[in-house]
Every structure is written in C-alpha cells, then in structure tokens.
C-alpha cells in the first residue's frame, strides 16, 4: 500500500480510529442515536468553523467569528419580536457586512486579518453590549417555536441541526469545488500574486471570503440563540478556539490553498469526539485540559498532509 496515496485520507482515518477507541472503552458510545446526537450538538460550532474555513483557505484568519456570533445572539433576541422570520435576514446581513469590513481592512488597507478581524470583533462586542444593555436576553418561547422551531427539532433520531449542517456543507462544498468563486479562492490561497497576474479581482474574492466567514458566523450565532432561546454578549464565548482547531485538525493549514470544507466537517467531528472522550474515559477534572492538549497534538500530527506544505511554519 502506498502511503502517499493514503495521505489525503488521514483525517477521516484519524476520526475513525478515535471513534473506535472510544467505542472499545464504552460500546454504548457507538449507538447511532448517540453518535447522531453528538453530531447534532456540535452543529453551531461546525457552522462557525465552516465559515472560518473560507478565511483560512485564502491564507487569512477570522478572529471576529466568536464576537460576531455573540452579537448575533443579541440581535436575534432583540429583533425576533418585531421582525419575525426576517430577523434571520438581518442577522446574516449583519454578519456579511461586518465580514466585508474585515475583508476591506485586510485587502485595501493592508491590515493583517489577524488584527483586522480581532478589531472588528471588538466592534461586534461593543455593539452586543450596547444593544443588550449588558444583560442576558431571552426570546419569547412561543414565538421562537413558531418562527424557528424547525431548526432545533428532531425527526426520528436525527436532530434537525444536522440537516442544516449537511445543507450548508453541501452548498459550501459545491462552491469550493465547482464554482468560479471556489477556484478563485484556491488560487488566492495557493498563489495570490499569480492569481492577480491572471487578472482575477483578488481583492474582491478575498473580501468575499471574509464576508462568507462573517455570514456563517452569524448563522452559527442565530442557530445558537434559537437553541438557547436567548442571547447575551458573552454567550458564544468558547467557540473560537475549538472552531479554529476544527479547521486545522481537518487539514486546512493556515498557509491556505489546501484542504477545504469537507476537511472541516471531519475536523469538527474529531474535536467533538475528543471532547466526549474525556467523559467516556473518565478523565479527572484537573487533568482534562492537559489531556485535551496532548490528544490534540497527536491528532494533528496524524491528520496533516505534509506533502502539500512546502515549508512548515
């Protein structure tokens, strides 16, 4: 067997191995209902990671995603009553617009995305604090159920979030593999100067990548606030690092141009399984963080395809 040919498959092999290990420790983990529910619970994080994939795919990063989701939970809670279903549009528009702002700062003003998105995240946080009056808000339960109840129900053992996730993944996958936009993003990630010299409007595609990232972070925030039936300026805290980790563990390196959204789906599942494994192996509270770090190192050592990385930075 040629190890070279296996390399692109390492991420899902790693996932399978992890699932098997946990399954041996506790076979009840492998029950389909359990696995589906595990997958369903990670969907908001996955959607954020999906968006981040676009930013990372072009070689940037989006650190505003978490603050964006925070802000959106507040926006959704405040405007659900007056706007009804249209609040979804408002949320996505807000995410898209602020993502565009990050993109604009990065491409036109030459502020590295690490900084520009962090700063835009600061703006989101301020807006969230101001709009919420600095307190947790809740949605009217009946109105939430009428408007967005379909997002969080369950059909048989399949959580509806999974349909949303699969739908978004399919759309993103098609964009990545089959559209001019996807090809352009790949070119920008792998060789920005050559893409520019081929007459691509690189700035526009880059801005679009950040906008998509912002838009999907908003969807993540919206889904999350529907799930919790409320919002607060800090409620989505704890999303950012796991989402970045999910993208990277999936095999999309920060240098861009390699990997993609399918990798992120696998990466998110790997993160979910590692997290659940703490419970299944009964790791003591004081050791969990350390074990998480160590397992992460092992997982990424297994998943990344080094042949695609010219230098490891």
């Amino acid at each position, binding site marked *: 067997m040629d190890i070279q040919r296996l390399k692109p498959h390492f991420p899902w092999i790693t996932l399978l191995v992890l699932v098997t290990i946990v399954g041996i420790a506790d076979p009840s983990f492998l029950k389909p209902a359990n696995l589906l529910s595990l997958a369903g619970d990670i969907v908001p994080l996955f959607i954020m990671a999906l968006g981040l994939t676009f930013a990372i795919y072009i070689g940037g990063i989006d650190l505003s995603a978490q603050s964006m989701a925070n802000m959106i939970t507040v926006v959704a809670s405040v405007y659900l009553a007056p706007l009804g279903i249209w609040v979804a549009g408002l949320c996505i528009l807000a995410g898209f617009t602020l993502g565009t702002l990050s993109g604009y700062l990065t491409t036109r003003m030459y502020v590295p995305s690490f900084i520009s998105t962090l700063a835009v995240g600061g703006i989101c946080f301020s807006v969230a604090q101001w709009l919420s009056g*600095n307190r947790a808000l809740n949605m009217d339960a009946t109105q939430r159920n009428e408007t967005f109840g379909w997002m969080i129900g369950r059909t048989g053992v399949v959580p509806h979030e999974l349909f949303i996730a699969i739908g978004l993944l399919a759309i993103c996958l098609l964009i990545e593999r089959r559209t001019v936009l996807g090809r352009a993003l790949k070119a920008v990630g792998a060789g920005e100067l050559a893409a520019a010299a081929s007459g691509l409007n690189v700035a526009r595609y880059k801005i679009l990548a950040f906008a998509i990232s912002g838009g999907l972070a908003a969807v993540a925030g919206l889904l999350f606030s529907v799930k919790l039936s409320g919002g607060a300026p800090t*409620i989505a805290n704890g999303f950012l690092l796991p989402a970045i980790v999910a993208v990277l563990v999936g095999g999309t390196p920060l240098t861009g141009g390699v990997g993609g959204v399918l990798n992120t789906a696998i990466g998110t599942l790997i993160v979910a399984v590692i997290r659940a494994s703490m419970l299944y192996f009964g790791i003591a509270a004081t050791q*969990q963080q350390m074990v998480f770090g160590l397992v992460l190192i092992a997982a990424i050592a297994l998943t990344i395809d080094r042949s695609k990385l010219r230098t490891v930075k």
Partner: protein
Amino acid sequence: GGAARAAISDPAIAWSYRDRASAYWNSIVSGGEAFVESLGKPKDSLVSLINEGSSEKSLADIKAFLAKTGGKCAIACDANDSPNARPVVEAVRDAGAYISTIWNKTDDLHPWDISDNYVSHMTWSDEKPAEQTARILFDAMGGKGGVVHLGGIAANNPAIERLNGLKNALKDFPDIELLDAQPADWDTTKGTELMASFLTRFGDKITGVHCANDNIAYGVIEALRAEGIENMPIVAYDGNPEAVKLVMDGKLLATVFTNPHWGGGITAALAYYAATGAFKPSEEPKEHREFYGPTVLVTKKDAADFKAKYLDAVPSYNWKDFWGPSNGQIKYK
C-alpha cells in the same frame, strides 16, 4: 405530574461547572465530593463536566453524559449563561434524568413548569449582601468621599446585582459619590490595571473601593501597594480563604461567604435524591424548588470565628437537610 415516583437505582452523579482554575468552583466541587462520599462512594465517582465558560460545551457535555448513562443520572449544574439553562434542563427531562441548577437561569424558567426532572434552582441574592458590604465601606469612609466599583463580566447576573447593592446603599449616603463603575471581569490582573487607571483619573478623590469579588480585590490591593497606599477601605465578595485572611489582617474590610461547599453538595444531593425517589419534587412547596442560598458576611470582628468554623475544618453537613441553611424563595422583579 402524578406519575409513579421516580426510582433510578444508583444514578451516576455529575457536576457541570465553569472551570477548575478558581477557588470558588473548587469549593463547589469539594462539596459535591463530600456528598458522594456520604453515599459511601469514592470521591472520583463524581463526574466533572467543565465548560470553560462556553455554554456550547456545557450543553454538549451534559448531553454526552446523558447519552453515556442512558439517562440514569443526577446532574448538578451552573448553566454558565442564563439562556443556556432552558435547553439543558429540557435535554435532561427528555432523557428522564434529574437536574438541580444554581446561579444562571432566565426568569421565565421554573422547575415546576418543566417536570420533576428539574428538581430545583438555587441562587444567591447578591444585592442585599453587596449593599451590606457597601454600608460597611461607607462607614469606614466616614460617610463621605468617593468610591469606585470594579465589577464582574458586565452581563453576568451576579455582577449586575452586586453593583445594584452598592447603588442601593448609596441612597443613604448623600455625601458619597460613585466615581465610576467598570467591569474587571472577575480577574485579578484586570483588577490591578483598572485600579491603576482609576487612580490616575480620580487620584485622591478615591477614598473607598467596592469590588465585585475577591479576585478583583487582590488586584486592587496590589495596585494600591505599588503606590504605597496602605489604608484604603476595600470590600469584596465570595469569602475565599485568602480573602478571609486579608480581612483578618485588616487589608480588606469585609467579604461575603456564600458557602459554595454546602451549595455544591446540596445541589448534587437534591438531584440525586429526587432521582432515587427519596422525595418527589412536585410534592414540595415552591420555596423548596427555587430558593436563595445562604450568605455569611465576614468582617474583621468575626473573621477568626468564621475561619475556624468554615475553613480550617470544613463542617460536615447533613446532605438530606436540603433546605436548612437556605434563605427563602427567589423573588423576581
């Protein structure tokens, strides 16, 4: 409803909380451990579900625990952010398990509206004790001067209540001015830096400091020490061992103990005994399902006694006396 009494034999017990990196949560967990030991189980049979400040992880971990135990479990939980409480208790109900919560839930969520599976909610009314510490502070300031407040994470409920307590006390002290209130995120380093900036802005106008918790107070004390300011009146909140020591040394005027050890134990006990069927929540009065936890004001004069009673040797509690030390039914505004 009127279904047969629950009877999960030997349910698994979990505590879901924020992090291991704080004295407060350690104390909560120690209470939980004391409780499981009272059942004759080893300490580590209490499962820790640590959410690291992430509501998303909180919910996911609880669901994973429900799945792992097949719903045969009792959970004690702080949902991290109040909106997160509803999906958590609903998930627990759907799995047929039992849960008691503390601190964070929205005002429209009540155990009796969910089912017996949502056993109880305990919180601490911080407004009154924070007002008391403020009064102690103002008295020490001689009833005049300027005070600054260093708060918790702005949107957190306790942070809001503790600031409100200060504001209530201010009404009776017309000569005291609240110079500014800013969040220090429960954090020592933020506390020092914020205090230093306050010193520049207000200088000698600051004659008293009101802190939202002990950790912030540690930072404030260090910021003042750097300036050679020794006798600033400061009050704090939480009653952590280090803070009690500072009270005894006179560096802190007062702190408020919420007995997290008891809270940690009793919350787990409530969920556990409801799960085993030892009592039926819906048969209990409302003040047994939503109630305030105990608060103990610690000042210099009672600090030594307090330390002897609560810290040097942790008192052993009767974990079936669910409501003994509690403080009445939760009132909403």
